[in-house]
């Protein structure tokens, strides 16, 4: 049974992914689910497949190592925790036990970027993509809506090695039709235009890029918008093609400007197609402002207004960054 698009549109990326995982595990007996007292997973996957569900408790390091051993024994574990705990608290276990051995453990992380909101910097994760991207063998994915989050499950389960996927805590509008082109390692070209390339990953950044593209269109400027859901391996051919066509690239992400999508794009462009680049993301600082996710994103300019204004001013020769 596949998930219904109309249900998914209202679901969070997290819930859509978990539901798809529970359903897909019915067809793929290799799939296991490792929990770290996250809530919600036990009632879903745990109830449907108790023989393949294990809760390691509030022990993320042990969960990662256990998952590596399960994978070595032929299982395909999906582990559930928060981004900060996956990337840093248990980061050494992810590196040594999972990535080094190239074992198919799939890390499903919530609370990526500023989505921890008012929970503060302990529960925000502005560096998870940077950490995971630096690990050999690791595939890094940030789906931009619930439909693609759900579609990720069988794709990840088919990988020979590990992956890290950032899942949204809140429902957002779909960024495209439920059946849009979606494959690991492929950018989805949501808009095509010749004036500027906007590269984004994750729900709010991609929506901000799309909103900015609409505003730019009203001003007569045509933007290319790439949904770069797979940050690693980066779709360099699609990026270079867009950069060659537009001559300038603007990245948008819910992450530190150090080490994430903006850095990945900068590295690829510098080597393959050096065009001017600007990055919109969280500056190099901790966010100790109390507020909701949208408020914090707005605080750092991860909005369609800011993307629009930046692109427009840049086009006019006024570089605002």
């Amino acid at each position, binding site marked *: 049974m596949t998930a219904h698009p109309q249900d998914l549109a209202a679901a969070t990326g997290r819930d859509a992914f978990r539901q798809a995982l529970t359903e897909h595990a019915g067809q793929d007996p290799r799939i296991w689910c490792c929990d770290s007292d996250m809530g919600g997973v036990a009632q879903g996957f745990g109830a449907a497949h108790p023989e393949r569900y294990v809760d390691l408790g509030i022990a993320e*390091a042990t969960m990662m*190592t*256990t998952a590596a051993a399960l994978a070595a024994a032929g299982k395909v574990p999906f582990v559930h925790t928060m981004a900060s705990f996956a990337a840093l608290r248990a980061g050494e276990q992810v590196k040594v036990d999972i990535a080094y051995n190239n074992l198919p453990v799939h890390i499903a992380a919530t609370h990526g970027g500023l989505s921890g909101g008012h929970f503060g910097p302990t529960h925000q994760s502005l560096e998870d993509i940077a950490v995971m991207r630096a690990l050999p063998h690791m595939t890094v994915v940030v789906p931009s809506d619930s439909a693609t989050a759900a579609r990720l499950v069988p794709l990840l389960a088919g990988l020979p090695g590990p992956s890290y996927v950032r899942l949204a805590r809140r429902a957002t509008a779909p960024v495209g039709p439920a059946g849009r082109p979606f494959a690991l390692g492929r950018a989805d070209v949501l808009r095509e235009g010749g004036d500027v390339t906007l590269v984004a990953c994750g729900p709010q950044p991609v929506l901000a890029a799309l909103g900015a593209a609409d505003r730019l269109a009203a001003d007569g400027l045509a933007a290319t918008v790439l949904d770069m859901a797979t940050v690693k391996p980066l779709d360099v051919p699609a990026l270079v093609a867009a950069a060659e066509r537009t001559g300038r690239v603007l990245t948008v992400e819910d992450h530190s400007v150090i080490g994430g999508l903006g850095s990945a794009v900068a590295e690829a462009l510098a080597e393959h197609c050096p065009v001017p680049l600007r990055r919109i993301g969280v500056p190099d600082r901790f966010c100790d402002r109390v507020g909701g996710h949208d408020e914090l994103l707005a605080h750092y300019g991860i909005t369609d207004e800011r993307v629009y204004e930046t692109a427009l001013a840049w086009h006019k020769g006024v570089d605002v960054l």
Partner: protein
Amino acid sequence: MTTTDQTATDPATTDPAAAEPAATVTDPAATATARTGLPLAERALRVRQHIVAMAASPEGAHIGGALSAADILTALYFDVLRVRPEEPEWPGRDYFLLSKGHAAAGLYAVLAERGFLPVEELDTYARSGSRLGGHPLRTVPGVEFPTGSLGHGLALGLGLALAARRDGRDNRAYVLLGDGELQEGSVWEAADSAARLGLDNLTAVVDRNRLQINGSSHRGNLADRWRAFGWRAVEIDGHDLDALSAALREPPAEPGVPTVLLADTVKGRGVPFLENRAKSHYALLSPTLRHRALKALAAASRTEQDR
């Protein structure tokens, strides 16, 4: 599996030293173990001789903790673990994880003696291009996981034991930890989960040599600590090969309760100038010291035989 089948597949019988008849295998649980070879004490002596040789190689080795673990490793690989050296990934194998990965020289020595690698390969230890580095790599036959970062092995054993249990397989997982390693918090995460999950097919062995780089690793009553985490704790002489074998082979004494053996050992055991010295943690032996060490091992072995 019949005894005849086992004789045919047991690589220990290809070892000229393993001339004894397979009839010495009396316990059905021993099907793939190497009880047919040299007496355990002689095997342990050879393991120690290899360790000394590796510590005398250009890079040196973690000799103190390898020598303290030598009897535990010998008992495991020659009298306990169901393994097939010619088929390291045999699905029916028992799992061994060297959580104190710095004792790699000890593991290489016992793997070579058991037939997982040519004994001559030990001469390549830590040299350019060798498979045998300062911490075990997964490319070494018989190594389940690369270790060396302390505090990982118990959760690896937990995962392997859990998979076996849920699959209905009877494989057991054995994890060798250092006593200094118990300072790593992840050990206690895994201890907590393993007990809660009822994994009585998981056995931990603590090589309690009571020393770490900066001095004493003694931290009070370890048995009480493990018991408080829901484990069955057994204190044992970590240099008594027969006692180690018996304790390691014992089926779970309490259903659903994992067992830890707190094995009292001597760091540097067998080489008097290294014994009970924190400085033996890592050493590069000069040719003179190598000679002295080998002489001491041989002398201790003769004394043992006279007894």
